[in-house]
């Protein structure tokens, strides 16, 4: 096994990552970094985190062997890491619990978050309620309209949802607005970023909190299947569920890591969100990474059927894993993801999130050409209850 110790102390993953923010945020980031590094090595913090993950989130999440699906494809065995069974229905809660615990120790009474589809917003509102903190969630006004149910969930949990009217009115603009709030209210406010992006230490910290997913797999796979998988697959928007499952596997070099981006209407159409597959390096949201940008360095609007993957950047560690060839990245388009969604519903009785359906679709593509003894482990990062309206609309059904 090769030692992997990214990022460096300044948050670099090779040429990626770093701290690209205005001077007004530097003190806040320095404070966060110092506090996180302290509590990361504090056994009491880690014990409480483990307790919360077990009793509040419901971990460990099981691994499920999708036998009917695998048999129907006639090749590799598909196993699902069931993050969809977590409290609030996705992997997002692992990270928000960790960051809320940190906020509490830092004496911050107010948390803010950005959200696209609303999953991270719901997970943030959830932990804010759990820890008795004020919560403000920034959400693009376009997403507020598309995700009315999640907006209501956040309100039920006591959060205030602020619609963002600037730019493309989606996730990236919500992130800009949350950063602006943080600059202004930094003394009493903790910003819970929902993915492995943003300035250092966020990419490292969010990865660490989510890496419980991969660590569980390392133990569960030998118990279930007698060995580690041949390939680990996960969808990549910002890339937090993928980093969560990839990270513990990075030193296990015989395990292929495959990230699946949103191909939208097809990468060639230009309507997609595949930053690693079709983008180029640049600087956005506090770090250097692959971006979807025009020839003048302006960030371009993305498209995906899955709001959670609809982001023009990607976590800097993925950029590094791509360039260093430790992980491979591919794109799955809307139709392929929808097909995988329906297949899993009918064949295994599991309704996956549209995000996770991208990873599943890639596994379904690969399985037939592989041997029956080979294993594909898919991170089923979330459940699809939130996607009912989107899927119904695509089928021409009004709910």
């Amino acid at each position, binding site marked *: 096994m090769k030692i992997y110790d990214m990022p460096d102390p300044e948050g670099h993953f090779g040429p990626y990552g770093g701290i690209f923010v205005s001077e007004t945020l530097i003190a806040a980031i320095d404070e966060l970094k110092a506090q996180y590094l302290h509590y990361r090595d504090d056994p009491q913090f880690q014990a409480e985190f483990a307790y919360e993950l077990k009793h509040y989130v419901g971990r460990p999440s099981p691994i499920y062997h999708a036998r009917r699906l695998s048999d129907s494809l006639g090749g590799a065995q598909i196993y699902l890491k069931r993050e969809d069974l977590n409290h609030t229905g996705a992997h997002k809660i692992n990270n928000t619990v960790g960051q809320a615990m940190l906020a509490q120790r830092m004496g911050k009474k107010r948390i803010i978050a950005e959200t696209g589809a609303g999953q991270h917003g719901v997970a943030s509102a959830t932990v804010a309620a759990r820890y008795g903190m004020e919560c403000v969630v920034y959400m693009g006004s376009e997403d507020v309209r598309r995700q009315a149910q999640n907006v209501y969930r956040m309100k039920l949990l006591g959060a205030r949802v602020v619609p963002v009217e600037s730019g493309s009115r989606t996730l990236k603009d919500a992130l800009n607005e949350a950063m602006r709030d943080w600059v202004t209210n930094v003394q009493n406010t903790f910003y819970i970023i929902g993915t492995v992006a943003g300035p250092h230490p966020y990419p490292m910290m969010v990865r660490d909190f989510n890496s419980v997913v991969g660590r569980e797999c390392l133990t569960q796979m030998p118990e279930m299947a007698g060995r580690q998988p041949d390939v680990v697959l996960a969808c990549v928007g910002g890339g937090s569920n993928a980093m969560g499952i990839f990270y513990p596997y990075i030193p296990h070099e015989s395990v292929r890591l495959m990230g699946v981006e949103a191909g939208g209407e097809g990468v060639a159409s230009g309507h997609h969100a595949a930053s690693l597959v079709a983008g180029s390096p640049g600087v956005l*949201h506090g770090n250097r990474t692959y971006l979807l940008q025009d020839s003048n360095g*302006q960030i371009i609007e993305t498209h995906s059927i899955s709001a959670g993957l609809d982001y023009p950047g990607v976590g800097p560690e993925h950029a590094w894993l791509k360039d260093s060839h430790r992980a491979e990245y591919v794109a799955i388009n809307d139709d392929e993801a929808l097909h995988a969604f329906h297949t899993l519903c009918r064949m295994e009785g599991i309704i996956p999130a549209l995000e996770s359906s991208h990873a599943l679709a890639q596994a379904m593509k690969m399985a037939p050409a592989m041997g029956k003894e080979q294993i594909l482990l898919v991170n089923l990062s979330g459940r699809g209850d939130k996607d009912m309206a989107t899927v119904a609309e695509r089928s021409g059904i009004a709910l």
Partner: protein
Amino acid sequence: MSRIPATFERLARAGRKALIPFFSVGDPSLALCVPTMQAMVSGGADILELGVPFSDPMADGPTIQRSSERALKNGVSLQDVLNAVTRFRQTDDQTPVVLMGYANPIERMGRERFADQCASAGVDGVLVVDYPPDEARELGKLLRPHGIDSIFLLSPTSTDARIKEIAALASGYIYYVSLRGVTGASNMDPQEVARQIARIKTAATVPVGVGFGIRDGATAHLLAGVADAIVVGSRIVEEIEASAADEIPARVGALINLFRQAMDA
């Protein structure tokens, strides 16, 4: 050497402080850029800060965000900004011009090409809002041979160590952000600003300007007593927003003149 040090020396001899207006190039149109710059100079501006539009201006408040969006709707690129400086230089070879913007358009153009183009256009200083000191140092190495200054921000939350680090890198002037927040906010405390500028001056050899939240002549007058330069941004962008296109140069010029008179009073 850029035009910036000579400008500060001339002002110091006259016992005056520098007035530095900001606006986004291409808001409301590229055609109005040079006339607006000229009107600012006639109104009493000493140094011009040109905003390079970016799709995700994380450090800016709503006013400058809107301004950036309007410019982008006009398709304005970093190259267009450089071309505007070239055109301005045909009629004004004295007034320093500073480009202020975010890293990505520069990264996309390539740092070397950007530095060369700044030199041929007649740019005097560059402020990259989201570059950390290490990255700014690399860009500075490319700008310095052309005599172009690297301008930096400092904030109320900057530590003494940070102030020292930035002071060692900065040339031209240092831009002190006078409040916690984004551009155009309104929670500034003049006495706190005076205390902070004194703190910066113990480490810095270049002049220290103040900006973010200066909305009227009275505040400008007050701060001119403690800082070497006053930066006015959002207030000017609001004037541009509120004016018909053909009135913009005249109205912006008149507004600058109000600030000028208040500062010199």
